[in-house]
């Protein structure tokens, strides 16, 4: 309850800050929407050339891509921690975080949120509706709720992996290029994993479970019953990974060395 109150207070503060720079905000929204539109066209053009990919039709692949964009947008809005090492460890901002009576990770999420990323959800939904209508998918009354759970699960998978990576900074504050690399690996989750070799598929399922952000949950909506087991594991894997990452984070905080003065 207290966390929710703080969360909404931060959001309103965030809005206020953005509103003080009215022109900037308008420009930013415009450019975000434009970017998403270009993205949408790009997706349709690129996938226009594919027809069938090991048993997946063009529209199915587009649908998976569209679904992926939704949890990814939520992740982008709230887990901007790719520069955690630089910003909080090297510059010592973590000191300030640790003198406040709220969980440190929660504070960083609140401080670093970028709500503009949520526009990506619109693109994702548009792509899904486009592909879904061509595939003639039937929607039952509970599907929106399943969708919500799958999206949250997928966003938690992403969040878990990146929080784990950020936690490394507590042990070693040297710069690594692991985070940009991970963004690349994350992209593999946008495509059906059975097009990859077995080892990569195993990695994307159990080690860096990016497949739970795109292809597995989408399989449920595409009616691919042989994949349902994986599909329903999405929220479980999401919560498990996120819980693990918070656990490691908490240990990391006790190893924090502080910035040298």
């Amino acid at each position, binding site marked *: 309850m*207290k966390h929710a109150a703080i969360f909404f207070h931060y959001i309103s503060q965030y809005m*206020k800050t953005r509103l003080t720079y009215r022109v900037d905000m308008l420009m930013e929204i415009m450019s975000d929407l434009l970017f998403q539109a270009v993205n949408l066209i790009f997706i349709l053009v690129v996938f226009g050339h594919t027809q069938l990919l090991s048993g997946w039709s063009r529209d199915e692949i587009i649908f998976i891509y569209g679904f992926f964009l939704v949890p990814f947008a939520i992740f982008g809005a709230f887990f901007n921690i790719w520069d955690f090492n630089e910003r909080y460890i090297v510059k010592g901002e973590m*000191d*300030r975080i*640790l003198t406040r009576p709220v969980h440190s990770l929660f504070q960083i999420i609140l401080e670093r949120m970028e709500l503009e990323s949520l526009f990506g959800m619109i693109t994702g939904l548009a792509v899904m509706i486009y592909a879904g209508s061509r595939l003639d998918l039937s929607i039952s009354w509970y599907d929106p709720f399943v969708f919500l759970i799958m999206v949250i699960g997928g966003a938690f998978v992403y969040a878990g992996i990146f929080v784990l990576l950020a936690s490394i900074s507590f042990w070693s504050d040297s710069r690594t290029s692991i985070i940009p690399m991970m963004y690349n690996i994350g992209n593999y989750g946008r495509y059906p994993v059975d097009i990859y070799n077995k080892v990569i598929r195993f990695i994307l399922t159990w080690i860096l479970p990016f497949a739970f952000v795109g292809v597995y949950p989408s399989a449920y909506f595409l009616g691919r019953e042989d994949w349902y087991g994986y599909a329903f594991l999405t929220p479980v894997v999401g919560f498990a990974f996120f819980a693990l990452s918070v656990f490691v984070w908490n240990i990391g905080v006790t190893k924090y060395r502080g910035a040298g003065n």
Partner: protein
Amino acid sequence: MNNDHVIHVENLRKDFKSHSSRPGLKGAFRDLFNRNYSIISAVKDLSFDVKQGEMVGYIGENGAGKSTSIKMLTGILTPTNGEVMVNGMNPHKEREKFVRSIGVVFGQRSQLWWDIAVQESFKLLKKVYNVSDEDYDRHMNHVIESLDIGPLLDKPVRKLSLGQRMRCELAAALLHNPPLLFLDEPTIGLDVLVKLKIRNFLKEMNEKYKTTILLTTHDLTDIEALCDRVIMLDEGQIIYDGALKKLRSNWGEGKQIEFQFAEQQTKETLSPLLDELDSEWSEGKRKNVWVANVVNDENVISEVIGRVVAAHRITDIKIHEVSTEEIIRNIYEEGVIHGQIH
């Protein structure tokens, strides 16, 4: 443990593991596989207690372990060894509950949000600390008035001057009216008027709420104005813990008599004058100036002046008291105080 101790520290220790790189390309390759680690103790077996309502000056040179020990007291760092109890809690173990009972100001680091107005920052902190409206109004109206920051409240932090910002930082740290306040270099870079304002305010808080204050600073005038007690650190250990007055009387008991002679003098010509007086000559900064370092005793002072004036012609004479800064510099140069610690 005594209950009226706000801070209780026993054998507190913090080690940092650091790796030293070998020289050259070959060394860099070897480092890749087998690193040389060395353990550096930033804080070694620190023990002290602070009672409620005390204002303690925490001093030491850079790297003496001030910051590290303060970070352990505020729950930011986990101690390697030893016991810390602050406000009856273990800072790093119950961090979220513990930090409600302290206020922290780091002079070089802002607690406020850069882009939003000061009062919006206060509102956010009020939410974070879960302070009720009544408590906030009762306490903060007074704080805002004493620090004279009313007119600054609707300005964004980035538009404030350093002095204005510092006063707002202080107000932010006191928003939840903590019984214990940690101030790390709160007056760094501030002009004299702002410094005075902040000192008066701290004194007032201390009197009104019995707020305990632990203060680190490079500016000893802050300590002289506020603190009765000083803790001096060197190389991670306490080298003096006691009253500032005692430090002065033990160490500042000497006086310096500065003579400007009309003719050139050497140590040889002057030395006989101080026979049996337990005093010493040192050369002054200007030409023909010599300083006699004597004990603070009226007979000795009169005797020295009498002998010098009788023997040589002088053009000027000044008597100086030893400043706190000099005392502290002397202590650091000598390491430990004449075996008179505590």
